[in-house]
């Protein structure tokens, strides 16, 4: 069953206009609250090529969530531009999202808020299938893909655990036949033993469908498991970029070094993580 799904999905990806993927060009985002302007992003440059799995890592308040929102048009960009397959991302207004941009889908952090509590799983997956330009995998195939029993289709979100809901959210995103999947801290609310599994699942489904993924997380040790390339973000700026193992083993930026040193290694030796100034 998973095989047919991937075939369907691969067929979808062949329809993709082989283009430039996602490009963030000197993007600045400012928020104004009560007359005070705060800058969340200071002119960041990023790209995600078609089919690539990219990580964006940083601590709370560094602007990584704002980046995800800017990519989906959920916050207005103050300066610079976000482009996807040549189409400029404008803030989401009264109208529907343009077709090209509908191919960017997102998996959110809070599994308890990301599904409509009043609708059955099937209805929510069907809605997402409706916009699939290629042959949308069936609801059954989608549930197989995220390793949930097919009977789940007739249940409501409240009947699932956090990890299961996140799988459903992944299935919904994949139902649309996305060419870019954004994961905005998709594993942060899950139990530790599920985090790696869900992250690997996201990588598996995007790989099989030929889609690209931008995986945003604060947890570098999980990100390292799945991404080819990563960006490290600190205080609204990209401070380091590179191949995953290169950054992991030879971090150049001072902040990246500090971040890496702080990760406790579960080796049973009782070694405290290093605090670098």
């Amino acid at each position, binding site marked *: 069953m998973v095989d047919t799904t991937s075939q369907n999905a691969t067929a979808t990806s062949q329809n993709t206009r082989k283009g430039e993927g996602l490009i963030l060009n000197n993007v600045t985002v400012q928020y104004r609250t009560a007359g005070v302007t705060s800058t969340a992003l200071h002119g960041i440059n990023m790209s995600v090529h078609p089919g690539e799995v990219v990580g964006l890592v940083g*601590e709370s308040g560094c602007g990584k969530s704002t980046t995800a929102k800017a990519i989906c048009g959920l916050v207005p960009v103050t300066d610079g531009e976000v482009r996807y397959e040549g189409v400029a991302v404008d803030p989401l207004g009264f109208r529907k999202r343009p077709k090209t941009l509908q191919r960017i889908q997102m998996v959110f952090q809070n599994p308890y808020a990301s599904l409509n509590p009043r609708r059955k799983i099937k209805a929510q997956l069907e809605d997402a299938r409706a916009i699939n330009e290629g042959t949308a995998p069936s609801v059954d195939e989608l549930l197989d893909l995220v390793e949930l029993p097919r009977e789940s289709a007739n249940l409501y979100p409240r009947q699932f655990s956090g990890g299961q809901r996140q799988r459903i959210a992944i299935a919904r995103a994949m139902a649309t036949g996305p060419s870019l999947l954004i994961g905005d801290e998709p594993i942060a609310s899950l*139990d530790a*033993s599920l985090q790696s599994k869900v992250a690997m699942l996201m990588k598996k489904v995007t790989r099989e469908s030929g889609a690209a993924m931008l995986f945003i997380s604060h947890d570098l040790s999980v990100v390292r498991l799945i991404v080819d390339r990563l960006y490290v973000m600190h205080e609204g700026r990209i401070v380091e970029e590179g191949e995953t193992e290169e950054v992991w083993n030879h971090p150049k930026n001072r902040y990246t070094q500090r971040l890496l040193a*702080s990760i406790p290694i579960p080796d049973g030796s009782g070694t405290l993580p290093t605090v670098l100034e």
Partner: protein
Amino acid sequence: MVMNNKAMNTGSNAGPALADGSSSVEAGAYGLDIENLDMTLNGKHLLNKVCLHVEPGKVTGLAGESGSGKSLTSLSVLKLFPDDAKVTGRIMYKGRNLLDLSEHSINGIRGREIALVFQDPTASLHPMISIQGQMTDHMRHHLGLSKKDAIAKAEHLLAMVHIPDPVGALKKYPHQFSGGQLQRIAIAMAMACDPTILIADEPTTALDVTVQAEILHLLRELCDKFGLTLILVTHDLGVMSALADNIAVMKAGEIVEYGTRHDIITDPKNPYTKSLIDALPMNMMKRGA
């Protein structure tokens, strides 16, 4: 009964012989014995015959996923469970069963001999009261200090947890500090009455990883300096591996495995513990994921 060095030096241990002993820290470290702790709430069996020996002066870790009963077990030590919960078993501390104590006597132990640090420092500090107000009220109530002495002690405590400019910090309010600084302040408050046992319930889960590293160092330092017995509750095996001496793994209200840090993490026996260890990113990496 295993004794740590400090306990041996002073010739005291956590046994009943010292039941009437003073609570001062230098008398030695005290542990806890949780025996057959069982809890039922509204027909749900939340804890099932939990037995745990908390070694004096050591860090005992309670690991497990959400809903496993690890927080419940640690909070039971202070009788912090719902009124209508049916609890059986014993929690022995200095020869007394804490579960038998009256509300009045347990209040004398809560926050004084056995202190707590919670996950979210913003929730455990009152947003409208200055740090000084929150720290000194607590100490004047429990220790009967004069206002001046209490302030002096608060400054000393803040310096101990490495808050820069302790005098200035006392005048500030919680929103003026970062999450990591607030957790330091919460730890300082927990240490105010020289507790013998500190229960830290997910003390670093709400914090960034760089801040987490600092807090772990602070907890280690306090344990070494004061011979503190620490009960560390966390789902993060990385944190566990950095700090805990012994680890108890909980699942669905039961302790499925207990052992030394090294044994649990490098050579788990129980299938559930194994699955937790296998799910660590580091180990998934090794298996060539």
